[in-house]
């Protein structure tokens, strides 16, 4: 066992996979220096042919990624900020996501689109997004959003080995988090949620940094309400069974999502809960999401992004008046 930080867990997963499989390589802007650390040190180990710095064009980088993947490689495309997926949209959404279907299942596009996501540092509207709903809304892409170092490592290995394009969004706020990581190899399959806290009164469904808000809220309320926190870990595939199992137990659910509320992740999950567990609901499905606003910068950011108090209030409201200190 060794203690690794979140970013280090990701870079270790990439290194292990590069060692294991020669077709795995990294391409992106300044991946050799790696300002967000997740590819730091790889160039020293694997050389510039497999850790390629690319010009400042996300579209070109993503295009090279898709081409290489179709040619039999397993590229990891570092978009730096997840927001920049919009620059690379045609290659990611139209090409990577759809080639398999266009070519009658004869062509796989095994690649990872890596992006640092989320708010928390007041970086403003173009560097704070977590474009989860947009990815979910484009069939053919998988989406992984880990909340802990352990999950991040196991999920990255699964993402690299997956034969489909996988968007892997890691959260800025999780970067310094540390956790014991086993020495032996492990892989966390995509589409398997993890119950991060067991409870009986209200289910909170979250991903990425929102899991930590949910856990904090659950802790603050633990004398009054028993909160179960489900970390989905990946949104595509979505472990709806885990959600439904929990909802059938608690009857109340709050979906927390850092992406914009309108047509968002929580809306989709809420609808699926309604379709599959309507008769088990004791309260309306509640959601806490980013406001329907561009993400404000600096001190204004907290008025857009979900905050602890909102999560806590939503849990209390779902629980109803039967619960009070």
């Amino acid at each position, binding site marked *: 066992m060794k203690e690794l930080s979140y970013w280090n867990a990701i870079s270790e997963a990439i290194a292990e996979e590069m060692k294991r499989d020669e077709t795995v390589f990294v391409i992106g802007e300044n991946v050799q220096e790696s300002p967000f650390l997740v590819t730091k040190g790889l160039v020293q180990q694997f050389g510039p042919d497999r850790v390629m710095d690319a010009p400042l064009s996300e579209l070109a980088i993503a295009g090279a990624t898709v081409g290489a993947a179709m040619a039999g490689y397993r590229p990891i495309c570092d978009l730096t900020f997840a927001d920049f997926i919009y620059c690379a949209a045609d290659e990611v959404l139209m090409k990577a996501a759809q080639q398999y279907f266009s070519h009658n299942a004869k062509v796989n596009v095994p690649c990872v689109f890596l992006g640092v996501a989320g708010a928390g540092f007041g970086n403003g509207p173009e560097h704070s997004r977590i474009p989860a709903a947009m990815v979910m809304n484009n069939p053919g892409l998988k989406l992984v959003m880990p909340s802990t170092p352990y999950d991040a490592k196991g999920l990255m290995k699964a993402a690299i080995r997956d034969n489909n394009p996988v968007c892997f969004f890691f959260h800025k706020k999780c970067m310094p988090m540390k956790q014991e990581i086993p020495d032996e190899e492990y892989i966390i399959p995509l589409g398997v949620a993890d119950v991060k806290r067991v409870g009986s009164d209200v289910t909170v469904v979250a991903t990425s940094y929102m899991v930590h808000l949910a856990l904090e809220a659950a802790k603050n309320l633990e004398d009054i309400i028993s909160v179960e926190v489900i970390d989905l870990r990946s949104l595509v595939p979505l472990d709806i069974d885990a959600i439904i199992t929990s909802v059938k137990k608690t009857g109340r659910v709050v979906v927390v999502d850092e992406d914009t509320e309108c047509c968002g992740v929580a809306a989709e999950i809420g609808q699926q809960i309604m379709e599959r567990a309507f008769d088990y*609901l*004791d*309260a309306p499905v509640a959601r806490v999401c980013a406001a329907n606003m561009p993400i404000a910068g600096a001190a204004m950011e907290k008025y857009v992004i979900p905050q602890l108090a909102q999560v806590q209030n939503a849990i209390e409201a779902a629980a*109803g*008046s039967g619960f009070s200190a």
Partner: protein
Amino acid sequence: MLVKLFIPKLGMTMEKATIAEWRYKDGDTVEKDSTVLVIDTEKVANDIEAPVSGKLVINAAVGDELPCGAIIGYIAETREEYEIAKGGAGAYVSGLQASVAPATEDQKSDQHVAAVEPVLALATVERIKISPLARSVAKQNDIDYAGISGSGPGGRIVKHDIEVAMTRQAAQKPAVMTACPGSRGCGSTSDAAGKPVASIAVASAGDSTSQHEGKRIREVRALKGMRKAISEHMHHSHSISAPISVMFEVDMTEMVKFRNRLLEKWQTEGVRLTYTDIFIMIVAKALKKAPLMNSSLINNEIIIWDDINIGIGASVMLPDGESGLVVPVIRNADKLSLGEISAARKDLTDKARNGTLSMDEMTGGTFTITNTASLSPFWHIQTPIIHQPQAAILGTASIVDRPVVKDGEIVVRPIMPMYLTFDHRIVDGGPTAVFNSLVHGMMSDPDLIFI
């Protein structure tokens, strides 16, 4: 022509009826205007008459509870139409497209004719807020959640509320009839899990030796019809309101003289002025000055009514010999003269006695008066139950000679006890005292009625 028979909408709030009796058999020939069947609504039985002569097709059985507008049969004027109507759903639906004619205008004008087109429900049915989980738990456990108050957001009934109701119901349920040795009428009515599987009624009602909890049963009656309606209403009223009763007495010396003077001067054929008539007038006037007493709490809103519609509690004898209770309503009582009130009261109480009140004559009340003088002609008081969704009910009792203190002397005066039950959710003691003072004032000094 093939004419539909369906459950008519006989009152604004009527939603359903039960088929009480078919006077003819399927295939019988019925004459126009003869009573084909009798339906039971919540409060009254209604005869349904044949709009035309013809052969009867019956599509609903006695005991069926059906919504207004539901088709319960047909009257076929020709053999061919009869065959179409008898030919099962598929056959007659297609056949009817061509041959069913709407009722004529004069049929529509008569409420008791079967082919009245159903009037759309104008009264909104109060939707019960209940979570899907609570609803399914209630269904599984056969819990009627209509009267349960919800503890969820916005008063929604949640699972916890159903569980509380289940615990309460379990506590109220009669003990399972297993341990009553030495009685042949006593059988086990519980299944292996100890869950009661049948009501007391199965303990053979006709068997005089049947027992329940060691008490011998004389008779078991099903809770149905008007008894059921009264039972449900009374329980509903107590379960949703916060009733509080105030009792007081009125010196009726002047009122007795007042009524006697009026009786001497005013005689209309068939109508004799009663104290109740005068009380209705007094209450209508008092309600105008204390409008909160003429209100309803509906959906978290206190609605103060502009109309003053006074219901009169009337005890009735039902055809089966049992007593019942109906509350006919005198609409806009504040705008009627004493003579008009008296005539309306007489008309309604006669109809109540004959069982011919229409639904509309029993709905729409905003306040109720119950006069128990004729039931108990001695000094008494009681705590009436509010007629929902009203704010209060006023009771008046018998006028009896009682000793009272007047100017330091004990004297004998005609005294009438009165009692008011009001809903403390809506109104507090202050406005109630104002109302009671107004009523007390006019009762003890009838001259005040005209001020």
